C-alpha cells in the first residue's frame, strides 16, 4: 500500500528559499508556477486554434451583413412575395426554373406546389405537383365528377420577420439581409440542422452536396440585379408576384391592397412576408 506523505511543512516555518523543502511557501510558489505555466499553454493553444478563426481566417463570410443584424435599415428596399392561389394552374414551370437556377439537388426542394382536392364525399386529398406538371406525369387523372373543388398552392420560404430559423442558428449562419430576405452563409453553416427543425413550413433542408442548410432566397442573386426570381419569371399565369413592399406603386403592393391575403401558421407569430391569396385554413 502506498504510504501517505504527511510532511506538514517541516520546521522552517515557511521562510526558507529552498525549492523542495515542502514548506507552505514552497507549495504556494509551486502552485503559482503551475498556474503560470497552465495559462501560457492555454493561451498558446488558443492562438493556434480559436483566434485565427475569430479573426476571420478561413471562415470569412462572403456576406458582409452576416456579421451584423439583418433588420432592414431606413431607406433600404424591402421585398415581398405574393402567391395567388386563384391563378395557379399547377404547370410546374416554376419548379424546374428554381431547380435549374439554384442547382437544387434531386430530392430537395426550395419551392413546391401543393394540390388540394375536395371530393364530394367530404374527403380531402393533398399532394404535390410533379415538376413536369400533372399533364406530363403518370399521375392518375382524377374524375372531375367526384370533385367539389380543387386548387393549387405554390410554397416557398415565407421569409418571416421573426424567423425562428434565424433565432436558433447557433453560429449566425442564418441571417436576414437588409432587404428582408433570409439567407444562409455557406461558409459559416455547421450543418447542425437546428434551423431545419425550427422552420414551421418545411422550407429548409440540408443540401446533400454542400452539407449546408439550404432554402429559397427569393433568388437573392437575381433580385439584387433588378431581375425577378426564377420562379416568378417562369410562371405563365402570374400566380407568383415579387416586388417591393415599400413602394406603393409596385404590383405586389397594389394587389395586396386590393385582394384579401393571408399568411401560413399565423398563430406561431413568425410574421411571414410571403402572403397567400385564395387559400383557406386547411393550407398549413
Amino acid at each position, binding site marked *: 500500500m502506498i504510504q501517505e506523505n504527511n510532511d506538514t511543512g517541516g520546521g522552517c516555518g515557511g521562510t526558507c528559499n529552498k525549492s523542495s523543502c515542502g514548506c507552505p511557501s514552497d507549495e504556494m510558489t509551486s502552485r503559482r508556477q503551475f498556474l503560470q505555466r497552465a495559462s501560457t499553454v492555454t493561451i498558446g493553444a488558443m492562438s493556434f486554434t480559436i483566434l485565427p478563426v475569430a479573426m476571420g481566417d478561413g471562415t470569412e463570410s462572403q456576406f458582409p451583413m452576416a456579421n451584423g443584424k439583418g433588420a432592414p435599415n431606413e431607406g433600404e428596399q424591402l421585398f415581398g412575395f405574393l402567391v395567388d392561389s386563384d391563378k395557379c394552374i399547377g404547370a410546374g414551370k416554376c419548379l424546374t426554373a428554381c431547380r435549374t437556377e439554384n442547382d437544387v439537388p434531386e430530392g430537395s426542394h426550395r419551392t413546391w406546389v401543393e394540390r388540394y382536392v375536395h371530393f364530394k364525399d*367530404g374527403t*380531402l386529398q*393533398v399532394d404535390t405537383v410533379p415538376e413536369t406538371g400533372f399533364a406530363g406525369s403518370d399521375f392518375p387523372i382524377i374524375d372531375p365528377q367526384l370533385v367539389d373543388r380543387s386548387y393549387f398552392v405554390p410554397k416557398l420560404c415565407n421569409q418571416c420577420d421573426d424567423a425562428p430559423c434565424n433565432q436558433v442558428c447557433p*453560429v449566425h449562419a442564418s441571417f436576414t439581409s437588409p432587404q428582408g430576405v433570409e439567407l444562409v452563409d455557406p461558409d459559416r453553416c455547421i*450543418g447542425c440542422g437546428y434551423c431545419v427543425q*425550427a422552420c*414551421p413550413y418545411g422550407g429548409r433542408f440540408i443540401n446533400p452536396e454542400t452539407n449546408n442548410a439550404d432554402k429559397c432566397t427569393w433568388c437573392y442573386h437575381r433580385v439584387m440585379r433588378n431581375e425577378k426570381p426564377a420562379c416568378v419569371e417562369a410562371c405563365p399565369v402570374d400566380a407568383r408576384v415579387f416586388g417591393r413592399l415599400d413602394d406603393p406603386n409596385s404590383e405586389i403592393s397594389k394587389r395586396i391592397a386590393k385582394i384579401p391575403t393571408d399568411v401560413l401558421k399565423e398563430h406561431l407569430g413568425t410574421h411571414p412576408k410571403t402572403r397567400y391569396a385564395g387559400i383557406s385554413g386547411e393550407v*398549413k
Partner: protein
Amino acid sequence: MDAAPYVFPNDPGIAWSIMIVLYPYITGLVAGAFVVSALYHVFHQEVLKPVAKLALVTSLCFCSCATLPLLLHLHHPERALNIMVTPNGTSAMAGFGFIYSLYMLLLVVEVWLVFRSTIVDRANSRTGAIGIVYRILALGARKMTEGSRKVDEWAIHLLAMAGIPIACILHGYVGFLFGAIKANPWWSTALMPVIFLISAIVSGIAALIVLYVGMCWRRGVKPDADCVRAMCRYLWVALVVAVSLEMLELGHMAYESGAEWEVLSGLLTEHLAVSYGLIQVVIGSICPFLLLLVAVRPRLNPRLMTACGGLAALLVLVQVFAMRWNVVIGGQLFSKSYRGFVEYTVPWGGREGMIAAIIVLTLPLLALWAADKLLPLWHDSEASESSPFETASRIISPEPIGAAFAITAETTTPVQTQPAQTQLTSPAK
C-alpha cells in the same frame, strides 16, 4: 373532414438521427452521476460513499465523450468551433460550447483534486511507463502537505457545489433545445427542460447502480447493501417524478386536444406504440417501479435486493433511452404538414449508423475501465490512504443533511460522530 396523408417534400429525410438521441442520453448520465456524487460530497450522504468516486469519474468519462455524437452528426464538423467563436446570442444551441466547456473543466479539475494525493504518491513511488503517466498527471506537483491538502479539500467542496447548478443547466438546457421549437408540437412544451433534467438524474442513478453492482461482481466483492438500497430509493423517487411529469405532459396535450393532437395521437398509437407504450411506459417505467418497491424493503435479503435493484436500474436505462428516442426521433416522424408520417430506420453503417452509435456508447465505458486501472475508484482500495473527501467532510461541513434528503436518514451515518477510518466498511472484508 377526412384527409389523405400528405408529407411536405423536404420532410422525408429526418434531420436529427440516432446521434442526437445519444447526445442527451450521455449528458443525462453525466448530470445524473454528478448529482449522485454531489449527494455525498456536498450533502454528506455517507451511505453513498462507496459510489462517490465512481460517480464523479463516471461523470467525467461520459462527459469526455459527449461531443462525439454531435461531431458525428454535424455536416461540417470542421466548423464546430464556430459555435464558440461566432455564437448567436438568440440561439439555445449557442450556449452549448460554453456550458459544456465549463462543466468539463470543472469535472477535470475536481477529479484531479480528488485523486491528487494518490497521483502524487504514485508519481513518487511508481517507476516505468506507469510512473511517467502519474508524473504527467501530477502536473509537476510532487509534494502533498497538510496545507495543500486543505486547499484541495476546500476547492473540491467548492467545485462540487458549483457543479450542481452547472450540471442542471447542462441538461436542462438540452431539454430547452427541444422545448423551444414552436414548429414542433411534440417538443414545444415548457415541461421539456424539467422532464429532461429529472430523467437525467434517473439515468445517472440507474447507471451507477448498474456500474457499481457490475464492477463489484467483476471484482468478486459484495456490493454495499445499504448503498445499493439508498440508490434504489433515490431512483424510485426520481423515477416517480420523471414519469409523472411525462404523463402529465401527455395528458395535458390529450386533454387540450389542440389542432395538432390528431397527428400526435396518430404518432403515439401507430408509430411509437412499441417504443413509447411498451418500452418506455410498461417495460421501462412500470416494471422498475414495482421492482424498486421490492428492492427498498428494509429487511429484504441483500442479494435479492441487489438483483431487483440492478434489474430495475437496467430497465430504467432502457426507459430513458426510449424516452430520448421518442422525443428526438418521434418528433420528426410526422410532417410539419400535420397530415402524414415518415419512416426512420437506423442504418448499420455510416457516421450516423448503428455501429457508430454502439462505439460512441462504448467509449465512455472504455474510459471508465482505464480510469479504474489508473485511479482508486473504490474506497476500500485505499482504506489506508487519506481521502480528501473524508477530511473535507470532517472539516468543511459538519452539519448533516436537511429534511429534504431524509429518505436515507436511517442508513446515513453522521459524519462528525465517528472517526473517518471507522466509517470505511470494505465490502471485501
